[in-house]
């Protein structure tokens, strides 16, 4: 029997060798592939295991990780969630994060390069790894004022500091509560997310920097005015023919002013008056004289046709290419295929306010290590010198006139010179207008640049216009921040 016994022993030995081999293959050789599998929830949980850094507004956390007793160890909690959702975004357990949660994920989880040595030392000291906190530029007063002023309207408000590009407020409505998307229940997150996606008002859009982009309408006249003044061929006193209707060259389309009449009185109208009263026909004429190439160059100097990282990526505002004369004329007052984000228009206003130098818009002041020592501080960064200080000063005066005695009158504030420009953009034959205001205050020493976007005609269809709905929002926000 012993010969057979030896053979059976050999079989048993082979069985155990097979087991040793298979466990080695799984645990050593396939381990990396298995860890990278999208279905591997252990990898997902691990990314939550780190105490994610907080997102701070004025030193107080608006997003922080609270320890909980489940697989994820920490629950991401957003205080005042809907208000700051356009800033923070959210981090779901079953998808990609958005907002700053997405853009600064490496810093928040402590995996950015600047945190390498902290990570190394935490391995040696055995401390649990922690992510860095992010200090934002948001001013809670400005944010709350913008939120309140926008009320139930669909749209966005952006407030920036012209001299630095710091973003003081970024509001988008309708909003959502990021807390509902951060819960640790897969099914619930998916349902909530789907409901938000299906909502016709698209609450997940951050309209300040993206969403379905709107035509800028008359606020784009600022760009065309800048192109005209910078060309050296025009002054505010340059005159244009002043008909009540203009048939576009090579087309049957007829352009009218919003008043349906001439732009003020007289056979000719000055550039200053055309901007103050926001007339379309003189700008169509100006656009035809400048040509689309000159306008495009100015638009691109302001930042059109490129994205900005704030550090979230701002959707590209568009000034189209290869325009014929009719299209150029329409584009000169921000129609046809011109599109702009409120953030882009905020750059335009802030550049005029800052003497022609465009500052890169930025949402982050500093990255703070867990012990609150700064890892990185953000300095104001120049994007470009877009227009000369003289042109900027001239345009500031033109915009102040527009508020004091023109089409943007509802942005007036007692005792403060507000520079501003309204816009009422058409989206198609029967579609509601898109309403705009962009400007800054105080005009002599600009502290705040503001852009207001209101979609869907502010609920008034084609009856709403920029000065009626958008300018008062800007006025309320500016009053709030100036009083502070």
């Amino acid at each position, binding site marked *: *029997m*012993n*010969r*057979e*016994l*030896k*053979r*059976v*022993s*050999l*079989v*048993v*030995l082979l*069985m*155990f060798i*097979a*087991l*040793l081999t*298979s*466990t*080695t*293959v*799984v*645990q*050593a050789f*396939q*381990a*990396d*592939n*298995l*860890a990278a*599998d999208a*279905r*591997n*929830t*252990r990898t997902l*949980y691990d990314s939550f295991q780190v105490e994610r850094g907080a997102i701070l507004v004025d030193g107080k956390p608006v997003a922080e990780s609270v320890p909980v007793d489940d*697989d994820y160890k920490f629950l991401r909690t957003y205080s005042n969630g809907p208000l700051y959702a356009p800033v923070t975004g959210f981090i779901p357990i079953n998808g990609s994060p958005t907002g700053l949660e997405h853009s600064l994920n490496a810093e928040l989880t402590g995996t950015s390069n600047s945190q390498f040595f902290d990570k190394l030392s935490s391995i040696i000291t055995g401390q649990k790894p922690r992510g860095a906190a992010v200090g934002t530029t948001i001013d809670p007063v400005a944010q709350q004022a913008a939120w309140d002023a926008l009320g139930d309207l669909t749209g966005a408000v952006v407030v920036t500091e012209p001299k630095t590009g710091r973003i003081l407020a970024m509001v988008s409505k309708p909003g959502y509560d990021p807390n509902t998307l951060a819960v640790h229940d897969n099914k619930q997150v998916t349902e909530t997310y789907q409901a938000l996606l299906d909502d016709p008002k698209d609450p997940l859009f951050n309209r300040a920097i993206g969403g379905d982009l709107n035509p800028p309408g008359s606020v784009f006249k600022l760009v065309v005015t800048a192109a005209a003044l910078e060309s050296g061929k025009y002054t505010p006193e340059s005159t244009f023919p002043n008909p009540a209707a203009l048939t576009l060259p090579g087309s049957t389309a007829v352009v009218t002013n919003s008043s349906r009449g001439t732009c003020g009185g007289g056979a000719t109208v000055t550039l200053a008056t055309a901007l103050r009263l926001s007339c379309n026909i003189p700008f169509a004429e100006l656009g035809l004289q400048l040509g689309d190439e000159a306008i495009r160059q100015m638009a691109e100097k302001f930042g059109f046709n490129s994205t900005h990282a704030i550090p979230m990526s701002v959707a590209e505002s568009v000034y189209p290419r290869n325009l014929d004369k009719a299209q150029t004329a329409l584009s000169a007052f921000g129609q046809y295929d011109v599109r702009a984000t409120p953030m882009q228009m905020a750059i335009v206003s802030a550049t005029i306010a800052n003497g022609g130098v465009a500052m890169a818009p930025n949402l982050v002041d500093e990255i703070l290590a867990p012990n609150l020592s700064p890892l990185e501080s953000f300095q104001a960064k120049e994007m470009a010198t877009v227009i000369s200080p003289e042109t900027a000063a001239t345009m500031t005066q033109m915009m102040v006139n527009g508020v004091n005695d023109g089409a943007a009158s509802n942005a007036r504030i007692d005792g403060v010179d507000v520079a501003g420009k309204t816009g009422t953009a058409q989206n198609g034959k029967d579609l509601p207008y898109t309403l705009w205001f962009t400007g800054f205050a105080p005009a002599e020493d600009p502290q705040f640049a503001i852009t207001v976007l209101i979609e869907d005609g502010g609920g008034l269809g084609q009856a709403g216009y920029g000065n009626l709905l958008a300018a008062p929002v800007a006025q309320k926000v500016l009053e709030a921040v100036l009083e502070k």
Partner: protein
Amino acid sequence: MPATSNPAAPADTSARRSQPRTGAFKRLHLPQKLRNLELFLLIIACAINGAAVVLVQLGALGRIDTSLVLFGAGLSVLVFALHIVLRIVATQADPFILPIVTLLNGIGIAMIYRIDVANHQSGIDSASVRQTIWSALAIACAIAVLLVIRNHRVLFRYTYIAGFAAVVLLLLPLVPGLGREVSGARVWIGIGSFATFQPGEIAKIALAIFFAGYLVRNRDSLSMVGKRFLGMHFPRLRDLGPILVVWALSMSVIIFQHDLGTALLYFGLFLVMLYLATARLSWVILGLALFIGGAVIASQTLSYVNGRFTNWLDAMNPDVYAAPGGSYQLVQGLFGLAKGGLIGTGLGQGRPDITPVPQSDYIIASLGEELGLAGLFAILALYLLFVARGFRIGFAGQDDFGKLLGVGLAFVVALQCFIVIGGVTRIIPLTGLTTPFLAAGGSSLVANWIIAALLLRLSDTVRNQPRLVV
């Protein structure tokens, strides 16, 4: 491997030669070298077990809960009681078996406790407390076996009763009102909602006794008398008949109960014991061919078998993964093992609770996640050592029944490990079996502790036999 040729302890035999009188009285006064070694190893095993529970608490709770440590200490007392019983009734028993089994059982309880912590379960309903109580019961059964069966040859007398008992035990779950179906397999019995038990686990011991007894009785007629057909020797049906009937009954019952793992286990046991007794390799090959053929046919025709094969061969396919009864568990187990890597996450610091049934069928994946490849190698080495001690009885034994029974019982443990761990690591299709001594499950614990007790008894008899050369 158990390839040594002279297993009897030399010191012991020389002592006996110098003092020709035998008997319990004499033995009591000899220095019990084997038992002292066992005691030393047992202390180490119990220390490791205690440390494992403490590590789980530190890792998963961040503090030490002394009440449970005391509970575990109670179990250690029982193990030492078994050790003392051995000092009295089986002084020459193998000194490695008890420490190995104690260690495996303790690590199992630590891991089951770890899953309880993750699932926020405590008290009498928690799996770890149940497992501890079952362990106590199992050790008590082992003590009883050692006390009652003073000589394994007693079992030889009950060959046919054992065969009958195996069949009855296997049929029990099919009795209406008594049987319970758990995750598709009707292999449990229970009264009311209380204390479910898997009689198939005990049946495997009864079957091993029956196979050993029957084959020893009939081996000559099995291998000598018969006809040659196709170049192979076939025994007379009246010699092979009874064993075939028992075996076929067991198999069909198991297949009827949807318990593939147990079917494979019994089949392997049958083939190996048949081969050992008759030395006919051709039968083993024929049996294996029949089994593989049958498995292939079953995988094509029976949906639940087919599902197991699909899960095995195409586990990563998203459709298979998402299907009900699909490869989700298998893949999650692999994810857990991968997470463990070479050295593991540390006890209490992984996430074994993500995988379904992490404390029973998948306890190996749970251990692999938290103890890593290093830990699994250690566990596999413990099993291999345990099986080797059993095989050693076979090599050293004097009577064929004892040899056959010892090897059969050891082989059952080895094969069961292979079926479970091989299923988890995708060597073979996954079937539901418990990992011996580790996995949560009372019937499995009781059965395996009885196996350990029988091996202890056999090893004692082997060493006490006069080395007779005729």
